[in-house]
């Protein structure tokens, strides 16, 4: 019993060394965005190297987590956008979602650690591509699900075949099996954009994932 009391004393003494702010999650001003900050599609951004924009919003657990993102994009001929997820603060080491308009359809390309695959999707009458992007980066190989923003949000392996999702990296049979299985995951906790920013109507993220698959 004496030994246990000594151990508990050490634990509680250690806790006393941690500040109250750390233990209560108090406001330190880290999220105070300067007035007049640039925003795109409803999200504040900071311009970094080249044409890259770093968005506000940080993934949990250093990127070892799952999050959902909503994208509403007005694609145009000869315009292209690259979204980065779970990337570092220079928008490297993450996963890329490349969207462009080819032959009247949306071409959606997913790239993770050198692995790449794309699908084509017809655009609605208003020409706006509305996507819900679920990225599960807390798996050994990141699990990505893409749906229409209005749903349905099926996460079964057959969802791409059944037409209940647009894309699933854990679809291992046709129509879109992709090169997935040993692709690893993003190693950062930020998201951002590069390309023609006029295609962005509205974006949102990172929020709680829709699927827990």
């Amino acid at each position, binding site marked *: 019993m004496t030994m246990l009391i000594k151990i508990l004393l050490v634990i509680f003494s250690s806790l006393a060394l941690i500040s109250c702010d750390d233990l209560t999650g108090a406001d330190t001003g*880290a999220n105070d965005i300067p007035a007049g900050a640039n925003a795109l599609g409803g999200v504040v951004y*900071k311009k970094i190297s080249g044409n890259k924009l770093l968005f506000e919003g940080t993934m949990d657990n250093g990127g070892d987590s799952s999050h959902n993102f909503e994208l509403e994009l007005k694609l145009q001929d000869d315009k292209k956008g690259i979204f980065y997820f779970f990337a570092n*603060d220079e928008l490297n080491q993450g996963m890329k979602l490349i969207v462009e308009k080819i032959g009247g359809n949306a071409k959606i390309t997913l790239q993770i650690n050198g692995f790449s695959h794309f699908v084509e999707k017809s655009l609605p009458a208003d020409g706006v591509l509305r996507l819900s992007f679920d990225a599960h980066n807390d798996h050994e190989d990141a699990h990505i699900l893409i749906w229409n923003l209005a749903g349905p949000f099926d996460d079964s392996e057959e969802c791409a075949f059944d037409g209940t999702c647009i894309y699933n990296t854990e679809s291992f049979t046709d129509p879109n099996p992709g090169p997935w299985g040993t692709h690893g995951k993003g190693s950062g906790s930020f998201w951002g954009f590069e390309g023609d920013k006029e295609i962005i109507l509205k974006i949102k993220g990172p929020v709680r994932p829709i*699927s827990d698959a």
Partner: protein
Amino acid sequence: MLKKIVLTFTLLIPGLAFSFDGSGLQISLAGDMVYDTGLNSGSSAEDKLAMRGAEIMFYTPVDHNFDGVLSAAAHDENGETVFELHELYLSSNKLIPRGRVKAGQFFLGVGRLNQIHQHDWPFIRAPKVHETFFDSEGVFDAGIEFGYLLPTDSYWDLSFGLTSGHRYGHAHTAGSKPSAPTHYVRLETFKELSASTDGLKIGFNYLGRTDEQKNSMSLGGIDLVAKWRDGKRLTYLLQSEAWYRSVKDINGDENQQVGLYVFNQFGLSDSLLIGARLDGFKDLSKRNSITDKKINNVSYAISPELTWKSSEFATFRAGFSHSFTKEEGKTIEEDTRFELQLVFILGAHPAHNF
């Protein structure tokens, strides 16, 4: 004719019984059902009874030197029951004096919860620190583990493990060859307390791995279990684990998290136990991408539970859980839920060492 049939059965039945018992094969089946329902709008409880785990385990001495274990479990994953091999290993504590060796696939020998099957945990759900660093049940892998009881006056046990590291934690894929395989070391000590039935076990753990993308993970932690008994009855259990994780990517960018849980349980009678668990978790390196300042955050959970053990083979548990995450002074997540658990075991069940 009748005499021949009777004679045949008379000779055959004891023969069958002998061959079964003679092998020493022990079979254990465990069922683990959990019902949860959310009590607030932010709860992610599923409001259903889930067949969380069904485990079958075979274990037996293989010969005079080795023991063999096979365990497989079916889990509910989004309404689909997924079957997977958990453990398949050969072990021996007879080949090397004071030493033991294990080869095959097994739960990594670090921490407390990671070495115990989920249905044997003293509470319903994994603490956040365990779920984040070791997945909702535990991390298993294929490799080798060697343990050695140090020749000291007091009890000190040192173990090392080296496993493939192709996968770590939650995975639906085969993973890929890591840059550095999963490796771990654990130093464990045990001390008898006031009576011979009371004891305290403390483990010091380190685990490392570098994945194919050169993300280098280091985990360090302490686990503690103390039990007080009155005869065979558990009167008080204290169980706690504290872990720190660091992950460095190829550019040297580092992120760190720290978490712990403390569980206290009191035996009200031979079959009734009451306990509560406090969880804490903190992401030490989360920062705002625009201001580049560290985001102050902390997660807590409190989970009181009541356990009724009809016997060592049937356990019923009911509990509440309230968890929340605060970030920069704002509560960004809150989850309050009610949970029920039913665990039953059929057949023999291997004892845990403490």
